[in-house]
């Protein structure tokens, strides 16, 4: 099908975009990469009265390093994240996660901000941002605020952004040397949404002890979730196969899966266990700054 008619604006600044959002509120949708919004409009599942195309706001397209974190403009294309030597060096898990998003032609247009705001719990960027404890900087008529993943993702396709707010920047910590990491997922075909996606970070101490473990899962609840019990199993420990086994079981317990077209609830839960274990094994074989 074709989208229904809408009024189109293409502001050049965040200020203009916020003014338009303030004026039209719920009637308006922001168009970034359009890789989720336009299919919804083509199917007429969504019929926004007003589209605010932010592709001309060039100030929102950047990747830079500041002290111990990366600052990424919301309009940064997924493909640019994937190809960025800076991201690869400072936060390789993000490059790995984004490489699972759709196909190159999708990543050429799709943006980090668009993916996060769309908040599909099966998609890779929300999951990895949850694991990294990234922060979302949003701007509205009365100023700006910063949101952590737990505050930002509310439920399926829903964030805590107000109708007149816009996501402008994502702040991601750079990973210390020797951090172990992985991003693994189960999907039916290359490029499909994940049945289960798992982001794993292991912060290591001298002597091979895991100081802190972070495991985030996508596709198993209404938002990406952290498997806190599984993380506790690993924290302060030398990681063994037995601990990995246990962590997988704890993570599966944390899921709140619902059956859908792709998988039954039981299957998703079981795959959460399997993929958390797979993610941990893979993380142990990968070191930031190493080969």
């Amino acid at each position: 099908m074709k989208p229904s008619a809408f009024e189109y604006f293409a502001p050049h600044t965040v200020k203009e975009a916020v003014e338009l959002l303030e004026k039209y509120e719920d009637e308006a949708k922001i168009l970034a990469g359009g890789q989720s919004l336009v299919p919804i409009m083509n199917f007429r599942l969504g019929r926004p009265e007003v589209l605010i195309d932010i592709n001309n706001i060039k100030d929102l397209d950047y990747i830079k390093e500041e002290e111990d974190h990366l600052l990424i403009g919301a309009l940064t294309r997924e493909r640019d994240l994937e190809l960025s030597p800076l991201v690869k060096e400072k936060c390789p898990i993000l490059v790995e996660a984004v490489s699972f998003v759709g196909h190159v032609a999708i990543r050429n247009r799709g943006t980090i901000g668009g993916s996060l705001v769309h908040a599909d719990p099966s998609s890779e960027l929300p999951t990895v941002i949850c694991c990294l404890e990234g922060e979302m900087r949003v701007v509205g008529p009365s100023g700006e605020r910063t949101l952590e993943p737990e505050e930002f993702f509310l439920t399926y396709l829903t964030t805590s952004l107000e109708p007149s707010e816009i996501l402008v920047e994502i702040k991601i910590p750079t990973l210390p040397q020797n951090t172990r990491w992985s991003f693994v997922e189960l999907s039916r075909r290359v490029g499909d949404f994940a049945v289960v996606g798992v982001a794993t970070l292991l912060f290591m101490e001298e002597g091979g002890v895991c100081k802190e473990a972070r495991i985030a899962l996508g596709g198993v609840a209404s938002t990406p979730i952290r498997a806190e019990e599984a993380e506790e199993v690993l924290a302060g420990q030398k990681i063994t196969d037995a601990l990995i086994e246990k962590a997988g079981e704890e993570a599966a317990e944390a899921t709140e899966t619902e059956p859908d077209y792709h998988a039954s609830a039981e299957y998703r839960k079981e795959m959460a266990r399997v993929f958390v274990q797979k993610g941990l094994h893979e993380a142990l074989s990968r070191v930031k700054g190493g080969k």
Partner: protein
Amino acid sequence: MTERRRIVVKVNGMPYEREVEARRLLVDFLRDDLELIGTHVGCEHGICGACTILFNGRAARSCLMFAVQADGAEVMTIEGLAEDGKLHPIQEAFQEHHGLQCGFCTPGMLMTSYEFLNENSDPSEEEVRKTISGVLCRCTGYKQVIDSVMAAAAEMKGK
């Protein structure tokens, strides 16, 4: 609501000036307004890849963009591949290796391969498989498509 906008788009090196409704999809603009019907409309939600074009040098689904967004941009379609009536090496390879049957997905296959081979002059078959997985073909089983892209890579590298 049906306001029309004047846009100027360069397609295959030729500037076109047209008035379009904001909701006009880029693929429909190319096919219906410019009568460049080489680009195909398949699924209209970005899955099948038949409508893949190059937008400012990068592969994009033209069913997921609006024509108004192409104002001032450079678009390349399948019609821009051959030069002076001579087929591009990718097109020749698809012809030679039977990389198509019904031809519906072919514009997407060619434009996807074009971007890919420009960035990877010496691809592995694995990389080609992954790239081609972004375009759905329901005829060939992909084997001949992969053979075609590998042959095109060899040909282009030899030049």
